[in-house]
């Protein structure tokens, strides 16, 4: 029936099983204490004039902040998209029996995980200074197939995207590889024994199962990326945090504007958590464990859990 198990005792005859949730007085004391602290913080938030809530409200939907937010979202989505693609590609390469592929993939993750993201971003931003023109062709051997001006190709946005996506790909590569390795070897064998080619087995059998292991850390990565985008201010990209900074450099309302940015980050993170829940639910198909709770269910659970002496009549067991 109920999954609350820690404070449960079973009483009654076999045809009517009552599950009583005894509430410990200690929990009530702790709950009261926490509520008191929360109230104190809320009171402080509302009464401290330095927080200047009217300024916060004034800037919250202002054009520069909303544009910054959109930039942040755009960068997060694109960098994650390419990062996940790169991660999947390099994870499969890492696991390939073909030596050159696995070596290249290993080198990629080694390099991009091993150097600071900030340095990588500055590097891409200054690419034009290092290489004024970009030539595409086979080194030493072939003719140049394509050539272009680095300053025109690597715009601040491109530099930011390149830096974030390449770095993300290296982390996602390890996450995806871990997911693939978590799937029992027998699955691959059963798939190829049924005449599937490796690529099909990967797509239809291995990856869908690996997703259950891949999704939770990927959710972490997305939220991390949301905030990593604030690093791209070094490429003069006015994303959310940098937009707020540009404002308070002018108006000196530092704290209110940082609050504006933080609230937006919290809102987006909350939305992302909900999305993650539904993705996890999707890939939990056929699983043995219960599905994770929705954020809403978690809140409900919190309030029902400590209800004293809640009585549930169990199904009659013949």
């Amino acid at each position: 029936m109920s999954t609350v198990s820690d404070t449960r005792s079973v009483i009654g005859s076999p045809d009517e099983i009552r599950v009583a949730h005894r509430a410990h007085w200690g929990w009530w004391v702790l709950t009261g204490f926490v509520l008191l602290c929360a109230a104190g913080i809320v009171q402080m938030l509302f009464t401290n004039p330095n927080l200047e809530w009217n300024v916060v409200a004034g800037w919250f939907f202002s054009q520069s902040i909303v544009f910054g937010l959109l930039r942040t979202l755009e960068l997060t989505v694109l960098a994650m998209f390419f990062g996940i693609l790169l991660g999947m590609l390099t994870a499969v390469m890492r696991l390939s029996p073909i030596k050159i592929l696995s070596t290249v993939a290993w080198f990629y993750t080694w390099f991009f995980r091993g150097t600071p993201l900030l340095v990588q971003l500055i590097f891409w931003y200054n690419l034009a200074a290092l290489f004024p023109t970009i030539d595409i062709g086979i080194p030493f051997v072939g003719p140049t197939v394509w050539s272009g001006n680095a300053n025109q190709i690597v715009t601040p946005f491109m530099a930011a995207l390149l830096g974030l996506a390449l770095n993300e790909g290296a982390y996602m590569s390890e996450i995806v590889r871990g997911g693939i390795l978590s799937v029992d070897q027998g699955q691959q064998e059963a798939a190829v024994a049924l005449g599937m080619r490796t690529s099909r087995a990967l797509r239809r059998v291995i990856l869908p199962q690996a997703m259950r292991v891949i999704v939770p850390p990927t959710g972490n990565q997305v939220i991390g990326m949301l905030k990593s985008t604030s690093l791209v201010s070094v490429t003069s990209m006015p994303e959310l945090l940098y937009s707020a900074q540009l404002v308070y450099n002018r108006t000196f309302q530092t704290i209110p504007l940082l609050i504006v940015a933080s609230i937006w980050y919290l809102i987006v993170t909350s939305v992302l958590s909900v999305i993650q829940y539904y993705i996890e639910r999707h890939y939990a198909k056929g699983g043995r464990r219960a599905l994770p709770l929705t954020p809403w269910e978690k809140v409900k659970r919190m309030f029902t859990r400590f209800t004293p002496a809640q009585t549930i009549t169990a199904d009659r067991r013949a």
Partner: protein
Amino acid sequence: MTVPTIPAGPVAGKREVVLRVTGLKKRFGPLEVLKGVDLIVERGEVMCIIGPSGSGKSTLLRSMNHLEEIDGGRVELDGELVGYRLHGQKYVTLPEKLLARQRTKMGMVFQSFNLFPHMTVLQNIIESPVGVLKQDPKEAKETAMALLGKVGLAEKAQQYPRQLSGGQQQRVAIARALAMKPRVMLFDEPTSALDPELVGEVLDVMKDLALEGLTMVVVTHEMGFAREVADSVLFMDGGVVVERGHPHDVLLNPQMPRTKEFLSKVL
């Protein structure tokens, strides 16, 4: 709805070889696991392979559909070399596409079932017929339901594998392999992972298939099944075939001391 027809048993007097293994050698590093194994499986034949653990039975079975690369000898299915093609004087591994096509002609049932847990029973069965053989999904579904009826699990079509017992999962795995209409079915200890009370239901299904004339190679420790159903029994030890013949000869009147010793332990 029609139950897929399975090739009839051996036509009297006419021997049709389905699977031929010649001088098969396989090593894992320094360990020589198969030291030259020969066998012939005719159409409609049920061959049981018995032998102590570690004698190379699984490796032999896995070499037959090229789940393992081999180091010597050859495997032929319907006269066609499996896994390799002759290039001058050398064997080279077939490209994946051709390998996959050969594997569709051999069904394999594993000790640990290996159903796809994220797909329903029905999806498990039609996945390869639709995805690999490009069958019409509607027809594939009908065939799958007929096969499920045959293994006694028609009402479980929409369940996920983890909602089924081990015996039921293995029966689904058998239906899944049969859906590819293979020329031969390879079973690697299909009942070894099952609770004792579930072994019977899987063996019953296999018995029915044998009676219908399906060509089967079965690695098993179920001596009762071998005695009752097999057309031939092959005893392996240390990577070689020690003794082979009719089940009554090999199981009830073994000639080789190693066979006698093994049987005295398991019977």
